């Protein structure tokens, strides 16, 4: 049984142009990607803005419609389900959003925010509902008395925990975390990241962790997929990606991360220059005639690279 399987997923957006605004082209936000998540692991999707990582996450949870491809969750094909069935099966997948400010409705009390999924899926009496909400709040380390407060009464880190509490109410199995800490200051980031690790152990959660920050990805993830222009260029375990990167784009990305050691910065800059030169000079080796990225090919049991 596979936990989550994304198969040949494509998400295209039409580009309109010309005189009558007809569809003349497509933006291939996600262009044929395939990957799998095992239960209990953290899978990181990394890439620069516009590479399609966020679209992938949003498509799995149903916020975007796939143009083609299949998504299986516990062997059920989500992409084939009718709207209502989809919601039933999909409640095991939840999402943590990037911005702790805009992801909580400012007009609602914490109680109503966290109870929203309960009201959609479970029929509980107001009292049972309240108990459950207080329960979840306690789990994320917030005072149960805060249920009557509004989001603006909390700090960024606390808000992010409210968002996580909301995602946890339905006891999900998979959580898609879309840049969950990139809007936060470093010290608050640490708080949220630690916390995500804690609840992962406690509830046996699987994470699809989407981020542009390779440092955070390395800290959080077991396996990593590198995305570039809507496609996966490399996939492997954390060590494989960081220690033995194969694709030139992966190398380029890694060499771009600022070194935390000032003693080595001159070598690092030189190394970066070398990688960039290789990127320019050996472009044909890594991309096909149209500049497209090749399909992933396994080079070991866990490591695949997009090479011809």
């Amino acid at each position, binding site marked *: 049984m596979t936990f989550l399987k994304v198969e040949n997923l494509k998400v295209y957006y039409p580009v309109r142009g010309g005189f009558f605004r007809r569809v003349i082209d497509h933006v291939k936000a996600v262009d044929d990607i395939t990957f799998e998540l095992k239960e209990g692991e953290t899978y990181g999707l990394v890439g620069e803005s516009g590479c399609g990582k966020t679209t992938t996450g*949003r498509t799995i*949870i*149903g*916020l975007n419609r796939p143009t083609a491809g299949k998504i299986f969750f516990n062997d059920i094909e989500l992409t084939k389900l009718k709207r209502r069935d989809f*919601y039933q099966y*999909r*409640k095991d*997948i*939840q*999402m943590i*959003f*990037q*911005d702790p400010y*805009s*992801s*909580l*409705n*400012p*007009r*609602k009390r914490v109680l109503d925010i966290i109870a*929203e*999924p309960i009201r*959609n*899926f479970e029929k509980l009496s107001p009292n049972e509902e309240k108990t459950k909400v207080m329960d979840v709040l*306690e*789990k*994320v*380390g*917030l*005072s149960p008395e*805060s249920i009557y407060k509004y989001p*603006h*009464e*909390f*700090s960024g880190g*606390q808000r992010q925990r409210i*968002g996580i509490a*909301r995602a946890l109410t*339905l006891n999900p199995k998979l959580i898609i975390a879309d840049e969950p800490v990139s809007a936060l200051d470093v010290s608050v980031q640490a708080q949220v990241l*630690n*916390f995500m690790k*804690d*609840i992962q152990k*406690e509830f046996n959660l699987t994470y699809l962790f989407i981020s542009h920050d390779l440092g955070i990805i390395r800290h959080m993830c077991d396996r990593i997929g590198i995305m570039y222009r809507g496609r996966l260029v490399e996939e492997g375990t954390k060590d494989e990606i960081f220690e033995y990167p194969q694709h030139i784009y992966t190398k380029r990305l890694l060499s771009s991360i600022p070194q935390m050691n000032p003693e080595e910065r001159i070598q690092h800059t030189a190394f970066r220059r070398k990688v960039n030169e290789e990127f320019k000079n050996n472009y044909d080796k890594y991309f096909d005639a149209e500049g497209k990225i090749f399909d992933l090919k396994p080079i070991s049991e866990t490591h695949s690279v997009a090479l011809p």
Partner: protein
Amino acid sequence: MATPVVNNTNTDLEKVKSPSGFKIIVREFLKDKVALISLILFVGIVLYVYIYSLGLDTREVTRVDIFNQFREPGAEHWLGTDYGGRDVFNQLILGARNSLTIGIAITLITSIIGIALGLLAGYYGGWVDNVIMRTVDFVLVLPALMIIIVYVSIVPEFNVLKFIFIMSLFYWTSKCRLVRSKALAERELEYVAASKTLGTPDWKIMLFNVLPNLSSIIIVNMTLNLAGNIGIETSLTYLGFGLPENVPSLGTLISYSRNPEVMENKPWVWLPAAILILVLMLCINFIGNALKRAADARQRLG
């Protein structure tokens, strides 16, 4: 488990507790004396008009008494009489009541249409948005006043309801545009996406998540629209294409000034109505703008 229970010092530090919407509004009115006076004056006038008009009978008030033509203001007739010998003050009260009631009715109807269509267009976007917005664009370029005037003069058995109908047909567009643009921005916020992932149906998200966040803007806009709608109604009535004759409006009194003799030498007939309109409009506007500032302040804090 490693998660510690509640750190209350955290919340204490962050106690920047911003005041509730109502408090902000009260503060804004206390700060802005003009708005406060406007509010008191407006409420006073409205109460007076509605209570006083309970004791008035339209037919009595509009009965022609040829012997009392153009009496100057005095003890018997506070504001004098018009060419038909009718008491101006009583007509003023009735006119104000009718103008206010009809203004409110039109504002409510156009708001409902505008908000509903605006929400749909902004929330769904795509072709829904396209169809609605092209319609709005078209209605906006129509010479609305002229078409209303034509309608009023050719429709058989013209009455108040038909007037409200034709006005509502044209004046929902600005609200629709406003709600649409705000809903469009709101839709991009992550709490909407969050609600979707939590399985909340679209209509619930629109009504219970998006709409409350637009409420302050809508209320401000409705207040200002009320002034606008009363203005249009009285304008049309002034020209003779507004309310039917059996429903006197403030515009009716002013329309007597189209006779230059009345205009120049008998200002008591039309001037009080003109001033009352002016005062009402100004009050509504100052109230609306105070509300607007309160809404902006709230947005800054929120």
